[in-house]
């Protein structure tokens, strides 16, 4: 009897892929995160009332803001990288550099945003 082929989440995450594997995971988290957020947001605006207020209180939570801003920003920047290299496959040979650039763009923006959010949270 052979062992099943199933790859557990733990062993999948233990695989030592490099930069691009990490960005792929984060991109996926970001995409799903946004999809869920957008859905809830639209529904909340639609329903209004108590549910709407409850939903809004979630958005205003600073932890949630840090998370959703991560989703949006990372997904957008990484999505742009993917789009560019997909439309011009020749650029794929520069993927290492592309990942560096991506982080170089993402980190400062995200860092400032987190700082602002936390400051607002502490201040408010």
């Amino acid at each position, binding site marked *: *009897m*052979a*062992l*099943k*082929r199933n*790859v557990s989440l733990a*062993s*999948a995450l*233990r*695989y*030592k*892929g*490099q*930069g*691009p*594997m990490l960005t*792929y995971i984060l*991109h*996926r988290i970001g995409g799903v995160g946004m999809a869920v957020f957008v859905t809830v947001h639209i529904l909340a605006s639609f329903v209004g009332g108590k549910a709407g207020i409850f939903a809004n209180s979630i958005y205003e939570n600073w932890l949630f803001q840090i998370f959703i801003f991560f989703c949006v920003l990372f997904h957008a920047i990484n999505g742009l990288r*993917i789009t560019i*290299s*997909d*439309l011009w*496959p*020749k650029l*794929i*040979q520069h*993927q290492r550099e592309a990942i560096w650039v991506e982080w170089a763009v993402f980190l400062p923006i995200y860092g400032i945003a987190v700082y602002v959010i936390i400051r607002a949270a502490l201040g408010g």
Partner: protein
Amino acid sequence: MQVTLKVFRYNPDVDKKWHYETYNLDIEETERILDLLELVKGHYDGSLSFRRSCAHGVCGSDAMRINGRNMLACKTLVRDVGDKIAVEPLLGLKVIKDLIVDMEPFFDNYKKVLPYFINDSPLPADGKERLQSPGERARFDDTTKCILCAACTTSCPSFWGSDDYLGPAALVAAHRFIFDSRDEAASERLRIISETSGVARCHTVYNCTMACPRDIQITRAIGELKMATLTGKVD
């Protein structure tokens, strides 16, 4: 030099569950991981099983996870990985015994992309070779190097998800023929690889490219295939 070698063990004839076995070995840093496995098999436990043949990275038998990454045991030296070495079977294929996995789904996927030269037109009048310029030959050189070791496919998260994804190795084979100026079945292959199980399932994770012991630019090849399915340009 002293190394510890941790090996994934599973013998279906006696074990219910898999486990790790650790061996302390005294070896040279220029030895291959394959040499260590041979040493363990020879002197510590003869039942340790793994595939190997050529011992220099050209037959594709011994792809496995070494310190968490797919590599060929015969093309990885101790000095490349350090003195703590963990060896595990490939992910996403059934483990039959120890480091041996069931390769059938891998080869089945390979066979799906019509991985053979197709040209039913008459041969050149002189009966000689079909002409091909060095440039045309170079176009698909990279993907002719594949030794079907499965290091790429089993490093791909999409394949881990489900083995109906053709996987990078099969796509590499498709690339090798689609971009061969002499081949005439590019359209059939493009149709096959644009199914749900095909190129659309590649999320440019690059694990394949980084695992490939033949240094094939797999992600790039898949990228070219994606564009070819859309534009129909195959040169």
